[in-house]
């Protein structure tokens, strides 16, 4: 415990980022119920976590391929479980995404949740604690623990504050994810019985040095156990059936977090553990998973096309986008992996913004049915303008966030198998169709007489909107900020799978920053 305290006191910013939300949880829980204090403390701790997370950038960018700001603390003698956390070029941006979006969720809660707000804030804090842990855990058991810690508050938020059927929906959500995650626990234990370690870095080391090798059967068990958890969480078709109802019934701040960050738990897990722990099995089943991903892309888009409800429409579009990310991961090349990580960020920001703005619509109209709107742009031009930016970002318009990700993902898919890219591109076209159609019916057209009281965005509504729009533009126009570190980390990750990288990127002396500029230097490895 002493060394742990020492690591906090010596300003390990990862520990700080991780534990600020936990402290926030306890403080909010201890607050008196009817006051503004819970909001205040939740805001302070989520902003505090964000500021602490900003301090992770510098060391992580210096060595994006390795793990920086590490915490390594034994759970106690007699167990070989460790609280081993670290940040590389992938985790860094996901932690930043989480801590960036959480203050907005707190803000949205204050506006959109009507009752028992204190408990909701407490749940938000606990959720953030779990998420930051998931994105930085390097010990498999710690990863599992954080994974479940994030699940419980989300379940309570969906069930406790959701719509009329929320309790049924939330139980389905919990049992589905629980079934997946216990199988992941099985895989983790299986890995331990083979390697004697729960540590991600140690396992990779002992595999790459040839100390242990997994038989085909071992790999099968490990891979499918991990896949079960990640495929449910992401979700990958056909394990997505919990998603539409959960997204639709959840209170808006919870939907915001479900779509923007919680789905990234699944894709991050696939990338970090799914393909590295049992690479041969992952490689062997990659075509099948890519097939599921492509079905998810097209199926999600087609269903989004016919949704009469805005929230459900965005939910299905989210399913479609997650399919792209999964496709990129299972392309097993640099472009695919880079695109996957970038798209996680871009999708987080753009879908988050869409759900948030949909929340504004819901607060004003108390409905999410498209038919209940019409001509909103006349009454609320600013809301319409911002909504269109988020929408174009989601479609993948150049200069906005998703374009970069989708471009790389399709490129990666095309390198892996050209037909994948062809079918996946259908999803891009369809996304323009359903989004624009929805926008047209909601914001243009004949003014619905029942919404004449509609008011435009007020100054406090802008508070979460401005940073989101800024991020969409930043991600879309200057991906240089993010890309080099992502690439370097992915390069290391793909290398760890002992796969033959079809395209190897040379790392020059100045480090990872040059990677994206180094495109002409791409050489064939073989």
């Amino acid at each position, binding site marked *: 415990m002493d060394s742990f305290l020492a690591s906090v006191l010596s300003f390990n910013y990862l520990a700080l980022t991780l534990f600020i939300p936990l402290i926030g949880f306890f403080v909010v829980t201890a607050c008196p119920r009817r006051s503004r204090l819970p909001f205040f403390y939740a805001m302070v701790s989520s902003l505090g976590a964000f500021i602490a997370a900003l301090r992770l950038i510098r060391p992580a960018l210096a060595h994006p391929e390795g793990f920086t700001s590490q915490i390594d603390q034994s759970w*106690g*003698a007699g167990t070989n479980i460790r609280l081993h956390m670290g940040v590389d070029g992938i985790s860094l941006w996901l932690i930043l995404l989480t801590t960036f979006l959480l203050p907005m969720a707190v803000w949205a809660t204050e506006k959109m949740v009507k009752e028992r707000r204190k408990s909701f804030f407490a749940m938000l804090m606990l959720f953030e604690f779990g998420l930051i842990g998931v994105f930085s855990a390097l010990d498999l058991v710690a990863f599992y*623990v954080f994974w479940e810690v994030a699940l419980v508050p989300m379940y309570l938020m969906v*069930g406790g504050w959701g719509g009329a059927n929320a309790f049924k929906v939330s*139980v389905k959500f919990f049992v589905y994810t629980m079934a997946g995650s*216990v199988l992941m626990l099985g895989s983790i*234990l299986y890995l*331990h019985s083979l390697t004697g370690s729960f540590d991600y870095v140690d396992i990779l080391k002992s595999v790459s040095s040839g100390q242990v090798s997994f038989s085909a059967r071992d790999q099968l068990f490990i891979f499918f156990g991990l896949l079960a958890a990640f495929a449910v969480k992401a979700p990958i078709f056909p394990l997505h059936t919990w998603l539409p109802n959960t997204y639709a019934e959840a209170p808006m701040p919870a939907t915001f977090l479900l779509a923007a960050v919680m789905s990234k738990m699944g894709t991050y897990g696939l990338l970090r553990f799914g393909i590295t722990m049992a690479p041969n099995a992952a490689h062997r089943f990659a075509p099948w998973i890519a097939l599921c991903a492509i079905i998810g892309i097209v199926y999600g888009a087609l269903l989004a096309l016919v949704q009469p409800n805005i929230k459900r429409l965005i939910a299905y579009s989210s399913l479609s986008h997650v399919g792209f990310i999964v496709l990129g991961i299972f392309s097993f090349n640099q472009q695919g992996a880079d695109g996957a990580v970038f798209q996680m960020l871009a999708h987080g920001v753009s879908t988050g913004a869409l759900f948030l703005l949909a929340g504004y619509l819901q607060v004003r109209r108390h409905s999410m049915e498209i038919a209940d709107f019409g001509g909103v742009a006349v009454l609320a031009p600013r809301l319409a303008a911002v909504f269109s930016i988020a929408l174009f970002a989601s479609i993948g318009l150049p200069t906005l966030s998703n374009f970069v990700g989708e471009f790389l993902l399709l490129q990666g898919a095309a390198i892996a198998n050209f037909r994948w890219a062809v079918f996946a591109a259908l999803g891009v076209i369809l996304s323009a169709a359903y989004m624009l159609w929805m926008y047209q019916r909601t914001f243009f057209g004949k003014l619905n007489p029942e919404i004449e009281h509609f008011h435009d965005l007020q100054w406090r509504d802008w508070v979460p909107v401005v940073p989101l729009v800024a991020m969409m533009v930043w991600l879309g126009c200057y991906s240089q900020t993010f890309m080099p570190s992502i690439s370097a980390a992915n390069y290391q990750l793909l290398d760890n799978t002992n796969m033959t990288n079809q395209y190897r990127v040379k790392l020059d002396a100045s480090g990872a920053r040059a990677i994206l500029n180094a495109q002409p230097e791409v050489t064939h490895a073989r």
Partner: protein
Amino acid sequence: MPANFMPPVADYLRVSPEILLTFFGIVVMMLEAVSKGKRTYLGVIALLGLVAAFVANVPGLLVSPGAAFQDMLAVDSYGIFFRAVVIGVGFLSILASLSYLDREDSNAGGEFYALILFSVVGQCIMVTAADLIMVFIGLEISSIATYVLAGFLRDDRRNNEAALKYFLLGSFATAFLLYGTAWLFGSLGSTNLEQIRKMMPDNPTASISAIVAVAVALIFVGLGFKVSVAPFQMWAPDVYQGAAAPASGFMSAGPKAAAFAVFFRIFMTSFLPIHERWAWLMWGCALGTMLIGNLGALLQTNVKRMLGYSSIAHAGYVLVALAAASSIGVSSAMFYLCSYAVMNIGAFAVIGYVASRNERFVKIEDLAGLGRRQPAAAALLSIFVFSLIGVPLTGGFVGKFYIFQAALNSHLVWLTVLGLINSAIAAYYYLKIIVAIYMRQPDVATMQLEAPPFTLRLAMWVSAIGVLVLGLFPAPLLQFATSSAASLAGK
């Protein structure tokens, strides 16, 4: 026969917890006969007795580990561990029942406390027994007290049914155990666990006599009844539903832990050499127990009955550890039983509190809106429920984690996979409780719920803190369990 017939003083010191408990039990019974009015002070005396026994059980204070009474008892660290568990269970049960008995206006509170003390005495003997005869004696002492506890609410019909069922099936089971002991004695000439182990064939593939096989099977049946292993689980839901809530909590924790302790001691010492002969039996029974428990619980509307089924399922998880037949399996089961005892007593304490007078409100929907009526009790109940599900940071998770780790280390891959899927199924029915307390509006009839009295609150808080401590800092207990499991298997 030793020259000096009188056992040495050390032997008495080794059983000082049992002596203290018996003494206090008798005192409580005597005082009960002469006291008038409220009997709460008798409960306090019983609590003092349990504290004294707990202190006397701490190694290095009065107890120095070793055999006692000519190898009839083995006061080793394994026994000390379980003795601490059953004494702790008795303590929490009495703490939770003080206000319960007060509320039910039962004018016979004293007996209740005395019975719990006597039952704990029997369990202490069971967990330290090194001889099948002592196992039988301990089991009988514990069971007879527990039968009476189960039927404590004399005017309640369900309660009577529960007690009768428990008594008949329980005696039947004990008879099986005794019969198995007789067969074993007949063929090997000993009832001492160590002696039996030495007479077992060293070579795992060597044939064993049919008589020994029958004896093993009979002992398995007898103990299987006690821990409610499928297909001998039928009594559990009825009894847990019918008995008074604190008694149900006690029965599902203490006697069960003690019976499992005996189970592991017999099978991991005497029958360890032939473990390849019975491991498949454990495999099948573990799976069947988990399935029956979890599937049975899915459809229940009565919380106590549901917890009865859930206790069957949990017995299945512990049996997975026995199927692993390894030292780490024993230690994981020890940890699991300890955390299960704490969370289940806590859950029953809250249920007994919400049930109100005459246990009117024991349906799941009666818990509706508890989160608004009594936020603290609701939060504690949800801690117990999440621990029963096996959510990390609770004792239930750590226990399950180590059990399945033990199973995988013994290459029981499919049993692990099926067991894990079972624990996901279990989430479904446990969540009904969470749904009720946080996601539904309270019913008008169940609105008037007074704040829990101090002792009950104490019991709930102690249990909840125990669950969290076991989940957050499991290392010390786990280390103790590991070392005592090694001493058990390595003798």
